[in-house]
């Protein structure tokens, strides 16, 4: 009996929390004609015409370019964050360097609203010619990803027994070799998690995409909102829904595939941090 109640609560929670996603998927499968008289949950004649239109007619809004920009910027933002954080994490885990001030400082960075840096960054980008470029957006996403990457990697490396490093050093390896040849494969799962989590975070970022890009480097989150800018005749809800489904798909798929690792690292980042 109590178990039945648990299933009920679970179902309500899942439906309520995923409600906007469910409605969007349903709407994306309805024709414009059907939408005009049936906004409900039932689909009379399921159709893929909205997806065809989004993927086929790209003269005004090109979804491929948004998807591509998001991919490139997110890859830069994640790869660079790991490249910077991994050696730093190794130094922090294996020596006293940076443990007392740098680590807490960077961890606390997660809680600082990044918008306070946005205006000088905008001006800086103007001087450097980084406005509206994938590289420029990727560099900001690196900052967004660095704190959590550092926490996850410091935790992972600290969990590796230091005897492993010492044995390798006895055999004449330099600390650089130990880091790259011994430790890197051992903490591979943490590196993968960091990458997946960072990629999702980067893909879903909106504020800096909105401020720092205008046309060439617009990411998916910002591009999706273009389809809502009423353009005579109002919003094409079916088309807009298809765009949102396609745009939300990459991080959602990654997340669903890796939800175990992600939940573990989320908790580690929050509690140990």
């Amino acid at each position, binding site marked *: 009996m109590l178990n039945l109640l648990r299933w009920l609560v679970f179902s309500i929670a899942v439906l309520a929390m995923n409600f906007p996603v469910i409605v969007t998927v349903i709407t994306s499968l309805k024709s414009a004609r059907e939408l005009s008289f049936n906004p409900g949950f039932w689909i009379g004649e399921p159709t893929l015409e909205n997806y065809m239109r989004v993927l086929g007619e790209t003269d005004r809004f090109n979804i491929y370019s948004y998807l591509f920009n998001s991919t490139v910027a997110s890859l830069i933002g994640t790869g660079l964050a790991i490249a910077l954080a991994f050696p730093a994490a190794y130094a922090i885990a294996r020596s006293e*360097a940076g443990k007392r001030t740098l680590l807490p400082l960077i961890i606390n960075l997660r809680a600082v609203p990044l918008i306070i840096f946005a205006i*000088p960054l905008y001006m800086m980008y103007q001087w450097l010619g980084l406005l509206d470029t994938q590289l420029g957006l990727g560099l900001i996403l690196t900052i967004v990803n660095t704190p959590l990457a550092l926490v996850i990697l410091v935790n992972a490396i600290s969990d590796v027994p230091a005897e492993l490093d010492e044995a390798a050093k006895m055999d004449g390896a330099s*600390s650089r070799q130990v880091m790259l040849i011994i430790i890197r494969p051992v903490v591979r799962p943490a590196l993968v998690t960091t990458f997946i989590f960072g990629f999702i975070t980067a893909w*879903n970022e909106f504020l800096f995409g909105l401020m720092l890009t205008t046309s060439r480097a617009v990411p998916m989150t910002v591009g999706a909102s273009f389809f809502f800018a009423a353009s005579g005749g109002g919003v094409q809800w079916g088309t807009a829904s298809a765009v949102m489904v396609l745009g939300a798909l990459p991080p959602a798929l990654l*997340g669903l595939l890796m939800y175990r690792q992600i939940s573990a690292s989320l908790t580690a980042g929050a509690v140990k941090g």
Partner: protein
Amino acid sequence: MAIVNRAEGRAYLTPLVGFLLFFLGFPAAVNLVYSISTVSFETLRSPSLTGFGNYAAVLADREFWGAVSFSMRFGVLTALAECLIGLFLAVFLTPLLARRSYLMAPLMLPLMVAPAMIGLMYRLVLHEFAGPVPYYLFEWFGDSPAFLDVDNAFRTLLVVEILQWTPFAFLLFYMAYAAIPLEVREAASLDGASALKALWWIELPLMLPTLVIAFFIRFIDGFRVFDNVYALTGSGAGGSTTSLSIYIYQAFFKGGAIGKAVAASVVLFLASLAVLYGLNWITGRGRR
């Protein structure tokens, strides 16, 4: 023998530190200079120092205090609701989820979708002609409120934020609840404690550090909210949904009031430092 000696440690930290100094340290310095200068888009490179006029202008601006009030209420209410619902779900659903971990996936899905996208999706969900919510409300009750007008926008946004981020609090509590050693539970039930008593007197106190941390994380995220609010209402609804982040964005991009936007940024920075200091103080005390 140290595994990483001093010089090596410094070398490994340098790229990260350099990157952060360039992308955050420099902007922070620019913020401080501009906040005490008279500056416009024409005089970006030669701001003239004029003292604390920008701060005075910000602190005298009613819209600024409106934004502070919005962010404060939004942060506290959403964090509170997310933690309470998340705690309930974690404790109540654990027997269900412990053996079927795949059930976690649909509960975590909202965390994978961009808040900006969620905001856009609610434009559809709540639209008076195309949205299912007003449609069914009309069908069943003959009336539907205007979810995004001045009176209701705040409450609507609360629900939007809470529904998306309750899974985060739930996840932290679920992990913390599962981490309570079995012996503790057995000892409690041997001593004759009912499930409810064990929860209140033993399990919740053990989870307290996680509860505090989750509340602060969600409060900070709610306080600085931008994406979903901007995507759903802009600063619309008669300015009743201007969060502090949106205030800064508007002042800069729409109003061109650089000095004011920058001064508000510095104020926000100091406020977040104060919150962080409080959090570190609380968790630091808990550890001792």
